[in-house]
């Protein structure tokens, strides 16, 4: 197998991404693998590590759509929303770049090692810290300014409060980049940050056509893309699925809302889970697999 080529570019290099150079605090040197040409204008798709199925679905849906329309997707390679965005870009055969907080040759987090290996080969993985640097807490919040700096727009799919994702949005606003956010349930702590961004004036993204409009306004797409606004998806009929559509719930709460006994709710939930319509979250709540 051919060794993957590493490269280093410094601030006054021709290859150094112009958008990043314009920011107030650009890194002196970038270490990376893959194609440095991909570090051009991109859309950042970022979200929480501890993502809900809702956040994961949104990340892959919007990242996949943008990537298939020729927009490079930048994200942080972390588990949760970041990995979902990278994977969606790969599936729709678009371009994607991972910006790491550790050395570009370090596999962190471990769950992402296969993904990172693929990105190093045929896309790009970049970092500002030298080769082999192990992950350190401070490096990740510094890394977020590079994600913002490489992007024309940042799409926040799910962010708690406070969170690193929220920090990236701050960097983007400071650099004069657009910040877009996917609204979430007002009850979900996982969506507090993204909802706050919308309240502060960021554009909400609820369907592909809104994303397209937002991307066009920052100079992407040039009007060529067609949007599928998701209206074709079949309406949900099961009362449990309808109840869970807006907000994940526990069996007890669901039984209370639907005025059914806990035994039949429990059985119906397992049946729907088996059919793949529901997922059980780590905290015991149920969520619809495709919130559409």
């Amino acid at each position, binding site marked *: 197998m051919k060794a993957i080529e590493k490269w280093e570019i410094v601030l006054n290099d021709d290859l150094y991404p112009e958008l990043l150079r314009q920011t107030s605090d650009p890194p002196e040197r970038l270490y990376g693998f893959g194609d440095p040409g991909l570090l051009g204008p991109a859309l950042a798709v970022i979200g929480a590590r501890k993502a809900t199925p809702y956040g994961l679905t949104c990340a892959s849906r919007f990242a996949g759509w943008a990537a298939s329309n020729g927009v490079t997707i930048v994200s942080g390679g972390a588990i949760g929303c970041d990995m979902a965005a990278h994977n969606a870009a790969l599936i729709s055969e678009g371009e994607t770049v991972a910006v790491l907080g550790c050395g570009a040759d370090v596999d962190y987090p471990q769950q992402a090692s296969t993904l990172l290996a693929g990105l190093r080969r045929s896309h790009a993985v970049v970092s500002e810290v030298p080769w082999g640097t192990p992950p350190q807490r401070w490096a990740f919040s510094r890394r977020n300014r590079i994600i913002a700096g490489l992007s024309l727009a940042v799409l926040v799919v799910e962010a708690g409060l406070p969170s690193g994702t929220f920090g990236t949005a701050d960097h983007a606003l400071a650099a004069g980049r657009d910040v877009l956010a996917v609204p979430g349930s007002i*009850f979900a702590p996982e969506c507090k940050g993204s909802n706050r961004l919308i309240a502060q004036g960021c554009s909400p993204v609820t369907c592909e056509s809104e994303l397209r409009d937002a991307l066009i306004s920052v100079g992407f797409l040039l009007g060529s893309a067609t949007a599928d606004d998701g209206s074709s998806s079949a309406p949900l009929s099961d009362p449990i699925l309808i109840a869970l559509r807006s907000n994940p719930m526990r069996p007890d709460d669901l039984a209370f809302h639907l005025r059914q006994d806990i035994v039949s709710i429990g059985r119906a939930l397992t049946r729907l*889970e*088996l059919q793949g319509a529901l997922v059980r979250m780590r905290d015991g709540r149920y969520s619809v697999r495709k919130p559409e």
Partner: protein
Amino acid sequence: MQATVMTATLRGVDALPVEVQADVTSGLPMFGIVGLGDAAVQEAKERVRSAVRAAGLEFPNARVIINLAPAPLRKHGTGFDLPIALAILAATRQIPSSVIEGSTAVGELALDGSVRAVPGMLAHAYAASRSGLDLLGPSAAMSAAAVVGCVRCRVVDHVTTLRQGEIDPRYPCCDVSVEPHGRPDLADVAGHHAAKRALEIAAAGGHNLLLVGPPGSGKTMLARRLGGILPPLNDDERMTTALVHSVAGIDERPALAGIRPFRAPHHSTSTVGLIGGGTPPRPGEVSLAHNGVLFLDELAEFGPATLQAMRQPMEDGTISLVRADGRVRYPAAFTLIGAMNPCPCGYLGDAEHRCTCSQPMIDRYTARIGGPLLDRIDMRIRVDRIDPGKILREDCEEEPSAEIAQRVISAIAFAGSRPPTRTLSGARLLEACRPQRAARSTLETLARTVGMSGRAVTRTLRVARTIADLDAQDSVCCDHILEAAGYRMSDVR
């Protein structure tokens, strides 16, 4: 001058017969005990000497040798005091031989000559009934003999009784009653219907249950109320449970009254404390919870080795303690109820508090329980803090424990003479379940999708059988399988 008195020494829950042989000969005065007795047996010399004199009898001023036969068997405990005294008194012709003939004696002596009970009276009564001898001992022997039945009793509460000559053997009558103590009621717990249902199933089928939730969500409150919905012990269970309690020296009357044990050891409990051991090997908490519930609160805080030691008794229902001087087997068929937080900070998935744990921290925390132990837990249920409004509302009627207990008893009555569900497996389990075709294929699909082990499939089917019992259904249907699998599939994390 020689005399022999029968007694017994405890080994596990059995009392093995031992002969106490006394030989009183002329020579320099001395008192020796041979036959592998422990320190407590050696100290019997002083107690016997004082007790005999206190009772106004004469301790021989001669050479006194006591042999405990069979000599190679290790003997321990203070139950040899009375037999030794009897043997000396018989050898010196101070009591007629008819007092000791046809009886097995047990009891500890006080210096004033009174006779005290020792742990394991019930085991001694069993041994007496097996060998067809009368039980000679303090009045505690009376109640033990009453439980075993068909054992005559000769009561000696003080050594002075022996001066009267004959002791009339009596058939004991004694009713075991314990005062009903106020047990916490499930009606005190607002909401948590899913968890209450799980407790009901656990009570009806003896299935292991793990409650996972943030601090203060009510896990302990729920688990402690399980005792109130457990069905009473049947006659066999009553005996085996009381026997273990008696041997361990704890009050066996609740077990004899049919109350299932509910043991809740602290998480600092050692491996020996939990599964049994020591010299001589004593029953651990798993055995004291035999036919009842072992509640381990803060499961993840127990030592990992301690938890893993429970794997074998959980599967077999007994525990074998093998030591240099042999093997002791204690029964240990218990229902494990565990309670734990979902992560080190406790708040993973909580609606209000934010969890501050990183993923590796959470993984390390849950890994303390480990896959093999988790695989043996049939049901896992998430318990979350409920809305304060629900707790404070007065109009909401929660079902009292008595009603749930009634359903549990009917489920057990429905199961009838079938062997306990928790012991079924393979063909016998399938025969008991008679799963409908749809149920069979549902379980198959489930097992494939979730990647269940063979044991997981068996255990799911057992839970489904219990749910069908609660529904009074002969055959297990799809809904039962779905509910049973729902309890198993939930991630602990």
